[in-house]
């Protein structure tokens, strides 16, 4: 069985030194290495952004699509081959700006895929514009006088959209992140792992230090029950979206694939796609 090593390739990421995305890359590789998977059984589908490059930095099938559309692409891959472990990944702009619609619908559709967002509260690749998760008042190239829009709460939106696995991690804690990703992959349904992944170049506010001061690890609440949606929603609001750990999971709802009428256990890509002459004639006779 493959270990973490097999999921590494020789490509050197073009991320800045210190970028939070390295930790996410490492956590994904470690997680995959622990799951008894071979690299060819995994497809990493990413969007556009600094973070979107991640599909090229993991030894697995990788598809780097267009900005904001990693989720539809990933769901298509999963529909074609339900045996694959499908991971979608990208930035906060990619997922909660241009791709917000897909995010909510993917959560509600609940296909068995894992979505990892590298949330740095900034547009990194395009060199420092504000993002949908930038705080009110945040100054960026496109908000010289301070952001006059409210930040979106991806966690609240995920819960409202019916997500069945929700976790939040921090690039500083690779061990926890690895565990959250592993559980997310094992979860039978859509999982979101939102990761505070600092951009050391363009976001001088939300730095590693800032996150260390502000995040609220959920493991300090021994009574916290991640299967209770009401408690999860309350905690997300109470912590202003800064809680980390496993926030919510619903293991009762079947995945989308298990509800599709006529959908086979065999991947669609492996089915014989020829129809017999009898089937053909029968279909045709309905037009008589």
């Amino acid at each position, binding site marked *: 069985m493959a270990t973490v090593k097999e999921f590494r*390739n020789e*490509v050197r990421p073009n991320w800045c030194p210190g970028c939070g995305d390295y930790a996410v890359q490492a956590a994904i590789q470690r997680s995959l290495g622990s799951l008894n998977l*071979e*690299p*060819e*059984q995994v*497809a990493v*589908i990413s969007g*556009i952004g600094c973070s979107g490059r991640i*599909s*090229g930095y993991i*030894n*697995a*099938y*990788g*598809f*780097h*699509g*267009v900005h904001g*559309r990693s*989720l*539809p*692409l*990933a*769901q*298509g*891959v*999963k*529909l*074609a*081959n339900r*045996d*694959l472990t499908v991971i979608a990944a990208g930035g906060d702009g990619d997922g909660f700006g241009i791709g917000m*619609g*897909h995010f*909510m*619908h993917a959560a509600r*559709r609940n296909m068995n895929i894992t979505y990892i967002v590298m949330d740095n509260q900034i547009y990194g690749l395009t060199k420092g514009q504000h993002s949908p998760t930038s705080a009110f008042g945040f100054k960026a190239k496109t908000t010289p006088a301070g952001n006059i829009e409210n930040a979106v709460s991806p966690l609240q939106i995920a819960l409202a959209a019916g997500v069945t696995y929700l976790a939040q991690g921090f690039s500083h804690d690779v061990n926890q992140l690895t565990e959250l990703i592993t559980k997310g992959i094992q979860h039978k349904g859509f999982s979101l792992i939102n990761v505070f992944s600092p951009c050391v170049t363009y976001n001088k506010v939300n730095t590693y230090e800032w996150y260390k001061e502000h995040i609220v690890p959920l493991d300090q609440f021994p009574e916290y029950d991640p299967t209770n949606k009401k408690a999860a929603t309350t905690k997300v609001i109470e912590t202003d979206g800064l809680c980390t750990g496993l926030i919510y999971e619903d293991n009762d709802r079947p995945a989308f694939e298990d509800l*599709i*009428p*006529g*959908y*086979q256990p*065999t*991947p*669609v*890509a*492996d*089915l014989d*796609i*020829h*129809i017999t*002459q009898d*089937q*053909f*004639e029968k*279909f*045709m006779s309905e*037009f*008589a």
Partner: protein
Amino acid sequence: MHMLQELSWKVGGQQGEGIDSTGKTFATSLNRMGYFIYSYRHFSSRIKGGHTNDRVRISTVRKNSLADELDILLAFDQETINLNAHELREGGIVIADSKFSPVLPDNVAQNVHLYSIPFTKLAEENGAAIMKNMVALGTSAYVMGLSPDFCAPVIQNMFGRKSQKIVDQNMAAIRAGFDAMSGQNADFSSFQLAPATPDHHLLMIGNEAVAFGALSAGARVMPAYPITPASDIMEYLIKKLPSVGGVVVQTEDEIAALNMTIGAAYGGTRALTATSGPGLALMMEAMGLAGMTETPVVIIDTQRGGPSTGLPTKHEQSDMFAALFGNHGEIPKVVLTPSTPEECFYATVDAFNYAEKYQCPVIILTDLALSLASQSVTPFDYNYVEIDRGNLATPEALAAVEPGKMFKRYERTEDGISPRVFPGQKGGIHHVTGVEHNEIGRPDEATNNHIKMMDKRLNKFADIELPGSISYNGDNDPEVLVVGVGSSVGAIDEAVTRLRNQGIKVGHAQVKVLSPFPAKSLQEYMNRAERVIVAESNATGQLFHLMQLHGLQHKAMTSFLKYDGTPFMPKEVEAHLKGAVPAWQQ
């Protein structure tokens, strides 16, 4: 007695009154008797209310367009008469529900007669007012010299499972209409339809032919977003795909639809999506991705009236440029323009083979008249359906990839086509990106690499003309050559036949492929003609300009445009052609 070889019939009323099902029952019954049907529905984007009508041409031989004139109009309200009676031929008839005290407007042809029949009352007497449609069908049967039982098998199919009583009531309502008409003691001899030669043909709309083509070609994943006039395609496949292990997903929008289609094709299935103009516009970025990543996808665009929301329920052919040039950057693609349901079926089968052979997006461009007109068609040939998945990596090639090395998914080959692998295959790991890339799919933005890869992708169609790119009929050395595209084939053919019967030399070339454009063949047809007229349903002459773009030349080439939301009629084409040649305007 002189019998008609064809007859044109229309039923009209308010949307939601069962006008469609009346037309459908009528058309299906006659189709089963061996008549050839061409039926076209006028509707608006409201569900209840608003005028709607269904116009049916019944003929003893195949016709691919509506008839110029109407023989019989069935009306459930005065608005139907006001809006449609002018289409009646001299001596045509209106049969209307006496309930609304119908009157004929002034703008009707000579000797048009109105028969006021108590549709609603007779229906109520036989069970329920909703059967007024059946009463109306009965009146038609009498006028046309058909048995009142002509639609019994269809009625049986429709209601038999519910209850025999409903079947009997409907049949009684038909008979009541039949008797009421015979009670008029009028001479309907000019409406008697010649018997049909028994022949088995199907009745379907272009959308169904496309959908059935996709099913037969092995398409198993269809993500799509509903839009008129494309929705029937996903609605057909959502009923059928489960029986073969496939799936239709209604996505959140068309952007998701095409991206998901790309994912499914990359994942190893044959996948398609279907839309109309507004959705096509939303798909453009993803189409570029499919071209750049050489992912085979099939996109159906059922053109409707644009721009913007435009005329959502009306006919137009104005997405040709969008389909050809709408995406940014330059990618290879195939654009097919079938003109009949049969061609829709075969073109869809071809589309999946082209997509996988050339590894690029294939667009099937239909138009509203083709998508929605219900036509008699020759049963499709099972043996035509061959599935060719193109260049796939062999097990030997995959086994030969050294551990830790990437598969050359974008290997530069002589024909520009590289072997494909699907995720899950050992030895096949490679990268895919919309960024310019090298042979293993890694980003490579170097100038010489970009040139090489652009050439690799774009040269796939160098000097290629796909089979059946143009159909031609008419004289070899025509005074006028008409060039058309899409559903206009029937109207143009009919006009051409009429002119040839008058001893005028005309030819008709219908273009079935817009990309790769069959420039060479079309130029040859043009060279033989004195004049060239390009007929298309849009305001700017897109096909005309496309021909010029491809360097086609002719000393006398003009555009014939129609963009009022309705398809070409045979007489319009005939009149235009006659008007084009001074010597023909006796």
